[in-house]
């Protein structure tokens, strides 16, 4: 890609499926997932990198889908809410969110779950303050955040206790 162009063919793995697609250089990753692949679980709340609704995972790291170009995901492994739901990875988190009503309108929820899963994978021993801090990159206007923090905390405790298994 050392010749500049406005259009590229990219090849990447999205939710375990290989995708080859022609994209405009200007298209960000979240738009690519939504508009080209129909993965509507990745939401756009601000498109300037603040709200966290477009959080997805690229090569195992959470990123803002609106602050990365689709073309930059060439060769990458991309996971969205659809993927980590279907493979069961976050089933415990989903269950705790559900039990506690840790969502209302649901627009922030996919991003929240991606962020929470990242925290739990990296720091299952996180205390409540650390959870609040980690989750503070994702905006929720409906809940008071408390049920979200509670749900993450419960899964953290479970994970810290057993070491293995899904989150």
């Amino acid at each position: 890609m050392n010749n500049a162009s406005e259009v590229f063919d990219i090849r990447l793995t999205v939710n375990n499926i290989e995708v080859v697609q022609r994209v405009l250089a200007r298209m960000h990753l979240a738009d690519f997932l939504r508009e080209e692949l129909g993965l509507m679980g990745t939401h756009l709340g601000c498109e300037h990198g603040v709200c966290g609704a477009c959080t997805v995972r690229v090569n195992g790291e959470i990123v803002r889908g609106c602050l990365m170009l689709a073309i930059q995901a060439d060769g990458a492994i991309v996971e969205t809410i659809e993927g980590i739901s279907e493979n069961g990875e976050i089933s415990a988190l989903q269950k705790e969110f559900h039990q506690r009503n840790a969502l209302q309108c649901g627009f922030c929820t996919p991003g929240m779950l991606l962020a929470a899963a990242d925290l739990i994978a990296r720091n299952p021993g996180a205390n409540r303050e650390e959870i609040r801090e980690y989750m503070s990159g994702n905006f929720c206007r409906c809940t008071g955040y408390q049920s979200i923090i509670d749900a993450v905390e419960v899964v953290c405790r479970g994970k810290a206790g057993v070491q293995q298994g899904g989150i």
Partner: protein
Amino acid sequence: MPFGGVVKASAFSYAKPSSLSELFDLMEMYGDRAKLLAGGQSLIAALNMRLASPTVLLDINGITELSGIEVKGDVVRIGALTRHRSLEQSAEIKKHLPLVHKAMPFVAHAAIRTRGTFGGSVAFADAAAELPACCVVLDANIELASRKGRRIVSARNFFKGLYETDLQPDEVLISAEFPKLRVGYRSAFLELARRHGDYAVVGVAVHGKFQDDMFSDISMVFFGVADRPVHAVNAGRALESARLSPSTINTLRSAVSLDLETYGDIYHTAETKLHLAKVLAGRAVSIMALGRET
């Protein structure tokens, strides 16, 4: 430019050179119509809002020599493409540059830190950002390269103003070299932000010697107070050979007043910023002296 719906970047071309020499070719070809894309955490937001409309984006993420943290001799070298998350998690940084380690949790949020780069933050030169302040207080040397060759600029001369640096249009930020923590030296990093992860209202980074209950060789840098990180020279002098005491803090606060010509922002007047800087200065040196942080 008309005011209205702007959330998708205007059209641009994209290239991803795999070496510096390829990059320099492209930079020559496009001149100021090109922008370099590192982590993109400020740039892509600006593109989406059409605050920037480059003709071509040169993605430097494929230039491997720009990445990585390296400890050699008395220095730690941080490559421009080193992600914030790598800095945050690096045992070497924690050991040799504890100040930088302490600053990292204040840098935005996890999903930003995974992409955002050290070099991007330094080159972008937001006056309220943490890493430029770290460079200045630790007296880092910033390495710049162009087709013509390489040069080193002291971080203390690198920041020229709001989003302005000594980086020339044909240059690329390669790395920064920091002196390793020396025996007897300590640091403190404090920041006030309205919400966690926001740019600082006021922040302070302090580094220096504290031995036998006495301060010496203290560097203090404020950020979020003016158009660039401000090295508070008088503050350092005021602490030379001083012990921690209410009168030292008072002297320090007066020195800070001399050092800073603060700017206001939308929520805070210049006067408030100065007041907060003085409070933080006192707190930072107290933390240093009490050894709550090293």
